[in-house]
């Protein structure tokens, strides 16, 4: 774990050239289905008939069972393995969550953390929907914090269904940085 690199490496010019641009498009590997919803509800001990009972959902004005609102995040994550990836060798590096402003936007930073997240909901996500998440880098603001020198990256994720209907929009603020000793050496 010494000297970890967390994110795509590049210059500040590389990073700034991505502002205002789409930096990632992810189509969920699976359509929304009941088993995935149930497994999502379990660890939160979340009992809500909108997500399990079609007649209850219809009584509340929906045409079918809906996914929990914040489950949109889950449908913005791509597969962790696909046949074209081949077989893993011992000692392989496990793939972790892919956040475009960290892993697809180059920047001279080795570390990052999320500072804020919000999500607004529009149309419901129904069982059977196929969700796509389009990520845009909306801003980059350089900043010196106690943890090091870097920049705040704001990512906007627009979630749409198979008909192109917007179901949710999320904003994620990430601070990408170098710890103080690295900032002096590598960031000018």
């Amino acid at each position, binding site marked *: 774990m010494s000297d970890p690199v967390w994110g795509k490496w590049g210059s500040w010019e590389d990073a700034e050239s991505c502002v205002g641009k789409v930096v990632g498009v992810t189509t969920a590997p699976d359509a929304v289905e009941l088993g995935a919803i149930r497994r999502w509800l*379990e660890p939160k*001990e979340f009992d809500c008939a909108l997500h399990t009972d079609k007649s209850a959902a219809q009584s509340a004005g929906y045409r079918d069972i809906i996914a*929990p609102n914040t*489950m949109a995040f889950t449908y913005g994550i791509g597969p962790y393995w696909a046949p074209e990836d081949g077989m893993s060798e011992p000692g392989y590096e496990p793939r972790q969550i892919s956040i475009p402003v960290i892993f697809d936007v180059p920047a001279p930073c080795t570390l990052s953390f999320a500072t804020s997240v919000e999500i607004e909901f529009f149309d419901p996500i129904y069982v059977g929907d196929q969700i796509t998440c389009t990520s845009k880098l909306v801003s980059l603001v350089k900043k010196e914090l106690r943890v090091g020198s870097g920049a705040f990256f704001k990512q906007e994720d627009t979630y749409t269904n198979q008909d192109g209907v917007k179901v949710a929009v999320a904003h994620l603020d990430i601070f990408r940085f170098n710890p103080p000793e690295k900032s002096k050496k590598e960031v000018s």
Partner: protein
Amino acid sequence: MNIGDPLPDIRIPITLHRLVMEAGANRDLSMIHHDTKIAQATGAPDAYANTFFLMGLFERQLREFIGLERRIKKIGPMQMKTFNCVGDVLTVKGEIIAIENGIVSIQQTIESDRGTTTVCQSQIFTV
């Protein structure tokens, strides 16, 4: 609904078992959220709950408050002040702070022995 009304608390213990269930279900497989050694190597006391789980807890509290008919407009901005780790018992709290133009604004927090770990502002529709 009136300004100052509290939402019913949610109390939930965090175990590694729960975090593993959550990672498998919400697909955030970052190892800091289910591997104690890796979490500790980054400075955390133990493996800790991820953003999707915390957002889901806030959604659960809102849903249990508003029932099936009303709709949630927005959850967040949510800020994590410190970790929600294995061994912690979380209490989700909420209170109505404004009602305006058909939208109810709610201040939500997560508390544990570490103090207020997470803060969140959410909105629901009045009808």
